């Protein structure tokens, strides 16, 4: 029998526990979504979850490769719910199912399973929906959802004399415009605080992102109105940008990552992207997460790095330029309506990558 190695005790934290906590954190938002849009919302969430689970089970058996199937750990459900929260309640159920399946397949399975993904699976799913169903997924009609509303609004804060204040506060807790996850800032905030307390996410990414974004909004306030959804930004900051496999692994890297997402989002808002600004910015930074981790490698204990300071600053500067250039490129592609080609190229790239890279061991110590 192979000698068992130290340590001989283990923490109780497992991947399943982390996923369960995330699901709990998403619960308030799910409840609010159902309050706002009733059965429409419920069916969307159930469809997404079902499609995700099914895709994961089928995919695990069909796809070759030496990685472990993880359909029991709850991560498929998390991806499905997060995807739903970025969608309009008017999205047809078939498209939702397609999106969830694509999120699992191209956002997770083809990367080698849980933890292997370079991009946020829910956002990958969403972009696939936009690429393959452009007519359905774009345009203002998607967001004209008044007819589907279940419970129109709250008047909870009316005891505060001021009309505008009570209206604003009501809006924080509950409103019915926007994507499924955006109806209650309070619910998102509660979910985020829960995850922070449980140490499932750290404050670095959301904090960096939100502070940068807020600062940017304040700085740009005189240059014209910026149209964005506070709920959307908060939801992405807390749940999307903090996705573990697609974000940098060290703290300083995470702060830079959060800041850059903020900057890129503002860039997209300025160039007039109305709905996809968060998805695009996070996906772009996902692509650079590995580079960011390497660049922000912490200084090891007692190690003195002679003269590497300027080298690192230079690399940081160049990386920032590359990220901003990528953002401008995507912005242009969006303007000319070519973003779906990015998705098609991505499909080809990932299939080839899977075919030629994932037949070896996950760990060499097997």
């Amino acid at each position, binding site marked *: 029998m192979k*000698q*068992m*190695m*130290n*340590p*001989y*005790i*283990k*923490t109780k*934290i*497992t*991947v399943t*526990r*982390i996923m369960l906590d995330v699901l709990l954190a998403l619960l308030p938002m799910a409840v609010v979504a159902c309050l706002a849009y009733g059965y429409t919302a419920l069916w969307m969430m159930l469809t997404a979850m079902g499609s995700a689970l099914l895709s994961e089970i089928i995919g695990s058996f069909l796809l070759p490769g030496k*990685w*472990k199937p*993880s359909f029991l750990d709850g991560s498929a459900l998390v991806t499905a719910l997060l995807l739903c929260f970025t969608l309009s309640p008017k999205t047809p159920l078939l498209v939702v199912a397609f999106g969830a399946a694509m999120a699992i397949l191209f956002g997770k399975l083809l990367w*080698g*399973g*849980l*933890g*292997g993904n370079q991009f946020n699976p829910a956002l990958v799913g969403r972009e696939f929906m936009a690429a393959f169903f452009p007519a359905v997924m774009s345009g203002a009609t998607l967001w004209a959802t008044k007819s589907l509303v279940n419970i129109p609004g709250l008047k909870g804060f009316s005891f505060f004399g001021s009309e505008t204040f009570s209206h604003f506060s009501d809006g924080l807790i509950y409103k019915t415009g926007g994507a499924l996850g955006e109806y209650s800032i309070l619910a998102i905030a509660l979910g985020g605080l829960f995850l922070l307390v449980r*140490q499932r996410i750290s404050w670095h990414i959301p904090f960096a992102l939100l502070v940068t974004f807020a600062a940017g909004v304040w700085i740009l306030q005189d240059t014209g109105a910026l149209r964005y959804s506070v709920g959307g930004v908060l939801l992405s900051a807390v749940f999307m940008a903090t996705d*573990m*496999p*697609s*974000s940098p*692994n*060290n*703290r300083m890297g995470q702060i830079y990552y959060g800041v850059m997402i903020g900057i890129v989002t503002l860039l997209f808002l300025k160039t007039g992207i109305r709905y996809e600004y968060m998805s695009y910015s996070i996906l772009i930074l996902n692509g650079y997460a590995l580079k960011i*981790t390497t660049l922000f*490698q*912490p*200084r*090891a*204990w*007692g*190690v*003195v790095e002679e003269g590497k300071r300027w080298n690192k600053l230079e690399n940081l500067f160049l990386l920032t330029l590359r990220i901003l250039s990528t953002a401008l490129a995507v912005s242009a592609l969006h303007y000319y309506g070519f973003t779906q080609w990015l998705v098609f190229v991505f499909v080809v790239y990932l299939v080839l990558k899977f075919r030629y890279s994932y037949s*070896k*061991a*996950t*760990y*060499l*110590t*097997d």
Partner: protein
Amino acid sequence: MKLLIRSPKKENKQLTIKALAPVSLYRLSLKVFGGVMQPVVKEGERVLKQQEIARFTGAFPTRLHAPVSGTVEHIDFASDPCMIIRNDYEEEVAELPDYDPEQLTAGEILQRIADAGIVGNGGARFPTHLKYRLATEKQIEYFIVNGTECEPFLTADYAVMHEHTRQVVQGIACAQRVIGAVKIVITLEQQNRELKPLFEHCLADYDLPVRVRLLPDTYPQGGELQLIKSVTGMELRKGTIPADRGVVVSNVGTLWAVYRAIYERQNSIERVVSLGSTRKGIGGNYLVRIGTPVEEFLAQALPDRTFPAEDVLLIEGGPMMGHALQSPHQSIGKGTGGILLLSAVQKQKDNCIGCGYCVDVCPQKLMPLEFARPAVLTDKRALEQYHVVDCIECAACAYVCPSDVPLLESILKGKELLRM
């Protein structure tokens, strides 16, 4: 994320030290820090308790003494060099030198420590006289007494500090006569703060530049490099000799052995070992003679005298950095702080999810998850870039990983690759 590991320390530390009864056979390992000792007695020869039976000469000189009087039954030079002594139960003690402890010079104290075969109690077993001798050649600003027993389950150091506080202080005073440090700092974990007044009470009788500091209960606060930073603010790279930077760190158990050598004329033939288990009722702190086979130790220490079941792991040391024993015939050594009975934990080896918990808890500020990637593990340049040699193998990363990625195994493999 500060790593706090829960274990039954609170219950175990309150159990007073029990001396283990002598056993029929002692198996003394001849392996020491830096090599293998040469026996100075022959097979069949009768030896007295405290008599020198083996010696290591060379860069790291040290000695071994008989824990009982008896006959040298066998000397084995195979894969696990050891000497087996059969106890004659007469407890006949070899004659020990006569002197006044208070009149010893620094040089004589050093010689007595060397003659007694005292090595570091904390596990590394570095010859103590050598460490102190190196210190005399430098200006020492900090003499740190390591009472920060951060491994879960272990309470051997606590027991010594609790029951023999005055003796530990006398040991510190002796060491200080050799080291001559500007400041002495006794470090304790927050959870053991009741020891602070005990120390301060004894210290009042001595004119030493000493203070007692309480440090967080996090793991591995007691690791030498982390301890030095917490006390002095200096961050020493792994591999640095602390004396070169004006620091000496010594374990409380070692200092107690120094006291016993100088004042009680006891060579290093016994130490306190704690027994730990996740099962209730199994625990305690024991004064055990070096060379006691673990099965004999358990026969006396386990409440119902029954040996543990098949799936229970027998571990020497702590649960984080200790190692599982191949057989219960192996024995207690000078660096054995504890014997643990733990159920084997399941290790699934799932995919790394990039959570970064390992990066958060690494005391050396490394990124353990990188070492588990095949792309890094097979690349010497990458291994150097990520500083794999700076890992102190504390296993905090492997403990905290939600996916059971084989982090420590990968790190060891990486280190091996760089050695080739």
